[in-house]
């Protein structure tokens, strides 16, 4: 035991001696959010590898330390406190909003910038100057889907959502936006994670007779829902978000996915060469298809890198200040994959896509350009 302790201390001092910069990565490695958290952490690790291969940040090699939050808010608070005691340059994670809400306070107290994968609206509305998103969040992306549905002539809708943090956030945003657009929400159907059979939801959707279905459930459940819809001969259109339109769902649902349409914020299937390169590198290293969380983790690292380089040092306060109202283009830093604009709250925006599934393939039917009215473009 003693020997072990010594070697760890040695290792640590060694890495200190070399020029290195520490990123702590609280993520849902185990527990209910493990799929999401592992994608995130793998994306971060891949980014660190790419950055180090290209000479690091300001000449310093990137060191990442993944901390398992066990998808448990108390644990997430504890592990980030532990990580922060090592005085890292940045916190990259976590993804679950509950875990983020709990531990963003700690990062704020330590005046350390934190990039999170969480989508809950409240996170960036508390005046925390150290919290930054990596995707636009439900409040940014759902209005685009609902708008698209309105344009398609939809006047009434059934919402099928998964009753967890992710689904509830999406449902709330959708209901609000449907209301604003005058689309009648006929019924909201709650489903469970791991739900095996979607026949009841499908039959209810047939009964109420809406123009369309808005589906906001996880990948596997999306596929099951689409298959159940096809089985019951439902022909009304199904709309959704990145999850519903992902490659995984396509693979699982087969031809039941044809005709599904919606808006995609950030996806490994985006028709952007940089995204495709990322995806290939990720698949080669980890042997599975990255989801949008992996991309978010990857991008977060490059945003941090770019900001350190802009500031010219690892001054955390300066980085956090500088990042608000910043625009990072792929010319500045190719690793961000697509141009990103941060606003004064730490929310972001980037180009997004309208996608529909045709003949088992994703077809981009439109690009929604990044909104230019954020402070970044002034």
């Amino acid at each position, binding site marked *: 035991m003693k020997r072990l302790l010594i070697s760890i201390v040695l290792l640590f001092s060694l890495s200190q001696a070399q020029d290195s910069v520490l990123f702590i990565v609280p993520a849902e490695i185990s527990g209910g959010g493990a799929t999401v958290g592992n994608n995130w952490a793998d994306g971060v690790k891949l980014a660190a590898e790419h950055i180090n291969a290209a000479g690091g940040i300001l000449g310093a090699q990137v060191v990442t330390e993944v901390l398992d939050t066990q998808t448990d808010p108390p644990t997430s608070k504890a592990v980030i406190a532990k990580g922060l005691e090592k005085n890292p340059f940045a916190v990259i994670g976590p993804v679950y909003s509950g875990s983020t809400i709990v531990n963003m306070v700690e990062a704020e107290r330590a005046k350390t910038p934190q990039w999170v994968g969480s989508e809950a609206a409240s996170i960036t509305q508390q005046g925390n100057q150290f919290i930054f998103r990596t995707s636009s969040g439900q409040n940014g992306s759902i209005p685009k889907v609902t708008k698209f549905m309105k344009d398609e002539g939809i006047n009434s809708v059934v919402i099928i959502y998964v009753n967890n943090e992710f689904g509830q956030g999406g449902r709330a945003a959708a209901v609000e936006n449907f209301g604003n657009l005058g689309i009648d929400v006929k019924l909201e159907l709650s489903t469970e994670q791991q739900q095996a059979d979607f*026949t009841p939801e499908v039959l209810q959707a047939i009964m109420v007779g809406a123009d369309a279905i808005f589906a906001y459930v996880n990948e596997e459940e999306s596929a099951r829902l689409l298959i159940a819809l096809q089985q019951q001969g439902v022909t009304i259109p199904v709309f959704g978000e990145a999850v519903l339109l992902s490659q995984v769902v396509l693979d699982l649902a087969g031809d039941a996915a044809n005709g599904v349409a919606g808006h995609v914020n950030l996806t490994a299937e985006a028709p952007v060469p940089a995204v495709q390169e990322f995806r290939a590198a990720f698949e080669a290293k*980890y042997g599975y298809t990255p989801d949008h969380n992996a991309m978010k983790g990857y991008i977060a690292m490059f945003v941090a890198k770019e900001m350190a380089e802009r500031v010219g040092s690892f001054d955390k306060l300066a980085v956090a200040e500088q990042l608000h109202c910043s625009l990072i283009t792929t010319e500045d830093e190719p690793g961000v994959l697509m141009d990103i604009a941060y606003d004064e709250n730490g929310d972001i925006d980037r180009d997004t896509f309208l996608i529909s599934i045709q003949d088992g393939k994703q077809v981009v039917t439109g690009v929604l350009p990044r909104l230019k009215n954020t402070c970044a473009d002034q």
Partner: protein
Amino acid sequence: MQLQFFVQLLVSGIATGAIYALMAVGFALLWQTSGTINFAQGEFIMVSSFIILWLMGLLHIGLVPAFFLAMFISMFIFGFLFKRILVDPLLKYGDVPLIIATIGLGMIIRELTRIFWGANALPFPSLVKNKILIFGGLRVGTADLVTIAVAIVIIAALQLFLNKTFVGRSMEATAQNQDVARILGINVDRMILYTFLINAFLVTSAALLVTPKLLAKFSSGETFGLIAFMAAIIGGFNQVRGALIGGFLIGIIDNLAKFYLARVHLPFTDITLNLSPYALAIPLLLLIGVILFKPEGIFGRKEERSI
């Protein structure tokens, strides 16, 4: 239209219920014959599907041969070794240490699966390609029909084995009264081993049927285990038949509750409530009701004890 929907819900509920029944029967068997409350049951099912996938990839074989191979592996690990290494030494201390140990085992299986196969869900081949058949207004997928058929064949074979063979009846006897079975010279230990092997077989079969629908995912064991547990309690855990019916009941009730709770008209008012988020509560309420009013389970028989 209403009746047609009801039948539709029933049919698809039976398809999932059949799988739940497979999960629950093995669970109840272990409980009956050896007093093992196996909290790793769900993980056994989950990892069996990964074993099938792994064998298919490793040996380049089809689903069915991989299933049979996996069945033997599963019988050895989750039947024989599980009993010898974990259950036998712990059973003498009462059921709580064993319950805790199976929770620990479940944890090990879950984490090892995540480490070896990742946290993402993997697709799993189906026994048949799904085709939609239409009978009148009823729309049924061939995959569901095959699931029901396979589950029923397995369950019927098990029942025949238990009732019509001497070994099967000896197992039943062991389950009903272990002491008397021992007094009569029944090799109780071997009968218990057989139930562990049968459970392993049922677990692998459940994996074969459930995974095409729910995918292979390291975390799905938790749900499976809970369903098996609940089905066994609802049906009466002192009977194989009880667990069987419990499994079907949960599958059917789930479907009916989700459908009929989505729009509940309050009588004499115009108010319609959407109680669909509470659909999960119905089996739970049934469970609590069963325990309070018929603790031996809906189809269980009261254990009569003489003084």
